[in-house]
Structures are given as C-alpha cells and as structure tokens.
C-alpha cells in the first residue's frame, strides 16, 4: 500500500539509522514522477491545447488544401499528409515539448531543487518517458481519428503493419525525446527555449517530407533530411497507413523498413550519448 511505505520507521516500530533506512527505488519513483508530470501537463490547459491542436490544425489545413490524387501512387495527397503529420505530431509531443519544458524547469531551478533531494537521476528521466509515451499515444490517436474520419485513411487490419507502427512509434519517440532532452541544454534561459527548439524542428519538417513531398525537394536537402529521425518516422508511418503502391513516392521507391529501423535505433543511441554528455541540472548563469 502506497501510503504505508512513506513511513517505514513507523511500520517497523523502530527508528532505524539513516544508514539503514532503505532509499526508495528508481523505478517506483519514476512511476510517481510520471504521474506527477502528467498531472502537471494536463493542468496547464493552454499547453495541452497547443500541444494537441497544432498538429491537428496543420493536418486539417494541408490535407484539405492538397487533396488530389498522387500520380501513380494510388493514394490522395490527403492520405499522404495524415501519415506524415502523424510523425511530425509525435515529434512535437516528444522532442519539442521536452526540449522546451526541461529548459524552463532548469531556468526556474526546478531541476536544481530535485538535485538537492535523494531522488535518483533515473527517476526524473523515467517520469519524462511516461509523460512522452502517454501524450504521444494520445496525439497519435487524435490524428488517426481525424485521418480516418475526414481524409480517407483506413487503419491496417493486419498485425504486421501494427507491429511496424509499434516499433516506428517507440524508436521514433525515444530518439526524439532524447534529442529533446539534449537540446534543452542549449537555450540560455527558459524564455528563449521555444525559439531555440522550434526552429530546427520546423526546418526538419520542411526537409523530411512532412509538408512538402520528399520527391519535390532538391536532392541535397532531402539528403540532409535523411540524416535525422523525422524523415524515417514519416516513411515508417506511410508504410503502415498507405497501400504498398504508394512506395513509389519514396526516394528509394520502397519503404526500406530495415534502414528505417537502423537510423531510428542509431538516433536512440546517439541521443542517449548526447544527453549524458550535455545534461545539466543548473542554468548557465
């Protein structure tokens, strides 16, 4: 029972030395922190609205404006946008949200305060993982709902595609979340955080085939986009939600699941290394 474990001394009837009392475990505290993070997130109504509305508005706009058939691919542009915006949406909920919120927490010394307690470092990051996981699932659900109801996307009925969705989703949000944590160390103040984080994300959306189909980009720009996870998340989600005939629109003319997995996994590892190298509990002032 959770209430009892806050007072181990009372439970045993003795007062053990600080040296003997058991420090609470990182996993359990991580769950607690996750619950707390979600509570805080959902209490900031404008943040919730912004987080979810942004991708929804852009999806609706783009998928409504561009709705013609894509030549030779057997799909409409709207369907294409649903898959791509899904990737951008979960990246905004992971990369952008974390990058901005951690920078603000650092600036407002929330991090420093946590560092002054015996909270294990892992519990903090686990809390963020839960936050990102829950909000990204919700984001995906909302976008897929709109995609199926308004823009003619049909949810796959076979398990293989859902499995693909699962690993693209998990690898994608993990890599993006880690990159978000890493970029949060870049802004000098909490106030400058959103500009520092949003600019690279916006650029990535343009060169990763979110707003503009990858085939319309100059080769060198598409090449740069292909270095980052967003392009591969888009491609992965397209392979899940579009018919195989649509693979012709990709640079390689196929879905390239192997390469997608490789790039996304590499970003998970690279993001982790970057986090470990750059994470700071204190602001720079």
């Amino acid at each position: 029972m959770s209430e009892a474990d806050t007072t181990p001394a009372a439970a045993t009837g003795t007062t053990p030395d600080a040296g003997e009392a058991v420090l609470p475990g990182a996993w359990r505290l991580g769950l607690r922190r996750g619950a707390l993070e979600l509570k805080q997130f959902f209490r900031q109504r404008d943040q919730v609205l912004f987080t979810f509305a942004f991708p929804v508005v852009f999806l609706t706009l783009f998928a409504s404006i561009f709705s013609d058939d894509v030549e030779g691919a057997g799909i409409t542009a709207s369907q294409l946008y649903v898959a791509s915006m899904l990737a951008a949406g979960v990246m905004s909920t992971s990369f952008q949200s974390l990058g901005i919120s951690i920078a603000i927490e650092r600036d407002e010394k929330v991090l420093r305060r946590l560092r002054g307690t015996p909270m294990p470092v892992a519990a903090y990051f686990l809390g963020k993982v839960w936050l990102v996981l829950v909000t990204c699932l919700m984001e995906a659900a909302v976008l897929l709902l709109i995609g199926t109801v308004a823009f003619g996307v049909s949810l796959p009925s076979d398990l293989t595609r859902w499995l693909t969705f699962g690993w693209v989703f998990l690898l994608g949000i993990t890599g993006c979340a880690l990159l978000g944590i890493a970029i949060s160390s870049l802004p000098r103040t909490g106030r400058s955080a959103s500009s520092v984080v949003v600019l690279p994300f916006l650029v990535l959306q343009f060169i990763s085939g979110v707003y503009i189909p990858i085939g319309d980009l100059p080769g060198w720009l598409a090449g740069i986009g292909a270095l980052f996870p967003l392009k591969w998340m888009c491609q992965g989600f397209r392979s899940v939600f579009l018919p195989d005939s649509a693979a012709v629109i990709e640079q390689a003319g196929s879905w390239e699941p192997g390469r997608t997995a490789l790039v996304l996994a590499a970003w998970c590892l690279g993001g982790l290394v970057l986090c470990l190298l750059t994470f700071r509990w204190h602001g720079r002032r």
Partner: protein
Amino acid sequence: MTELAVDVRGLRKRYGDLTAVDGLDLRIRPGEVFGLLGPNGAGKSTTVEILQGHRGRDGGTVRVLGADPATADRRWRSRIGIVWQDESAPAELTVRETVEHFARYYPKPRDPRDVISLVGLDEKAGSRIKELSGGQRRRLDVALGVIGSPELLLLDEPTTGFDPAARRRFWEVVRLLAREGTTIVLTTHYLEEAEALADRLAVITAGRIVAEGEPAALRERFGHEATVTWTEPDGTARSERTATPTRTVAGLIARFDGEIPGLRVGRPTLEDVYLELTGQGADR
C-alpha cells in the same frame, strides 16, 4: 571528540577574476545553529552552495556529515535539507501534492501533514502553488527543506520576503528543529535574525571570516566603546566614541548650563559591530 557536522578548511572559490571565497575555515558541531552573516556578495551563498554540493570549489577541503559534497551520493543527500534563496516549486501542483511527493524521495520522511502545519500552510494545503503569495511559497520551500527529516539543514537567506509575523513563525520552526537536534546553518543579512537564532555566528566579508563567536561575545569583543552624541549651542551635532562615556557626560554637564541638547549615550548594537566589521572589514 565527535565528528564535526561541517568541517571546512582553506576553502577557495573564484569566478573569473573575482575571488568569492578566499581561504575560509568553518567548524560546525552537530546540533549547533550556526549563522553566516555578511553583506550581499560577501560569499555566503557561494559557501552554502559548496556545502550543498551544488557548486565546485577551487581549493580547500570540505567535509559535510563526513563526506565531500562534491562527490556525495544519494544516501548523503537524504541526510541534508536545503532551503533555497529563490523559490522553485512546480506551479501547477498543490501544496499537499508537492510535499507528499517530495516525502517519497526520502528513506524516513516526516509526515507531510505535520510539515505543512509546521510552516503554517494548513489553509493553503489544497491550493495550487501558483496561487500562493511570495511569503507562502517561501514557507513551502521550508517545508520541502525539512520533509526528509534532515540531520543538517542548510538555509540560504530563508526569510527574505517574509513579513514580520511570518519571520517570527519561521524562527519558531528553526528553534523546534534545533531542539530536535538538527544541525542548522543559515545565511542571513538580518542581524536580528542571526542574534535570535544562532548559537554561534561568523561574519563574512570579501570571502573571508572577519569575526566568529557567540552573538553576545561578539558584541562584547568588538563593541566595548559607547557613543555619546549631543548638539552644540550653535546647532552642530557632535558625537564622540569613548570607553568612558560617564566621564564624557560629566564634562558636558560642566560645560553646558542645564540641559544638554540632544544628549544620547549609545551602546553599540550587534548591528553596529557588524557594520563596522563589514565596512572596514579585513583590518580587524
């Protein structure tokens, strides 16, 4: 001899060209309430941050509860309580949620309800932190500092922004914790506060300790001269510092016919001692 709660020798810290802490020694015994007194920029906060393990140092040795704060682990942090100079609590949570959550970090926390009433936030327990006044937030800071039942409590300017009533109340909290045996180190620039709380205090200026001892002893040692002030018949104010004020007043009585205008004999307060120590500082 029992181990010191805080043992600092030759502490140095530089920020670029500025030497913030310049060869500081501190020995604080377990159970003691120790005041670190000094003007802004004297190096108080830097010193406390080094004791907390939140700032590195350029020289000297530091032992806090038997460990070097720079490399201390979770176990060590569970024995330390910190009250920061600037507030930093999650705005969207309620007081109760926050205190209960922080209690979970510690192996043997106090009861969150007790701590909330200890700092006088009972009525605000269900309020979001963003709805609290500045003084109430500071009291929450105090609550979060003591929730883990620390052996050593480090308070950096804990009552800045308190109204007088809240300050008195905070003093009661500190005294209560001290009675329970908590070692307390507090920085302050309120003399009244240092005098009311500290068993011993050190006056720090330009990164060095210029005086150290019990408040009464400090006043005795540095404040044996009295100041006699009066107004001359031509209207100019005069004052004289003397170890023998009675003789000075006798001289004035002889010189003036009847009442001496504006006569005042002042014994130095701790504040006078402090101002002198920090104003002229290092030559003492």
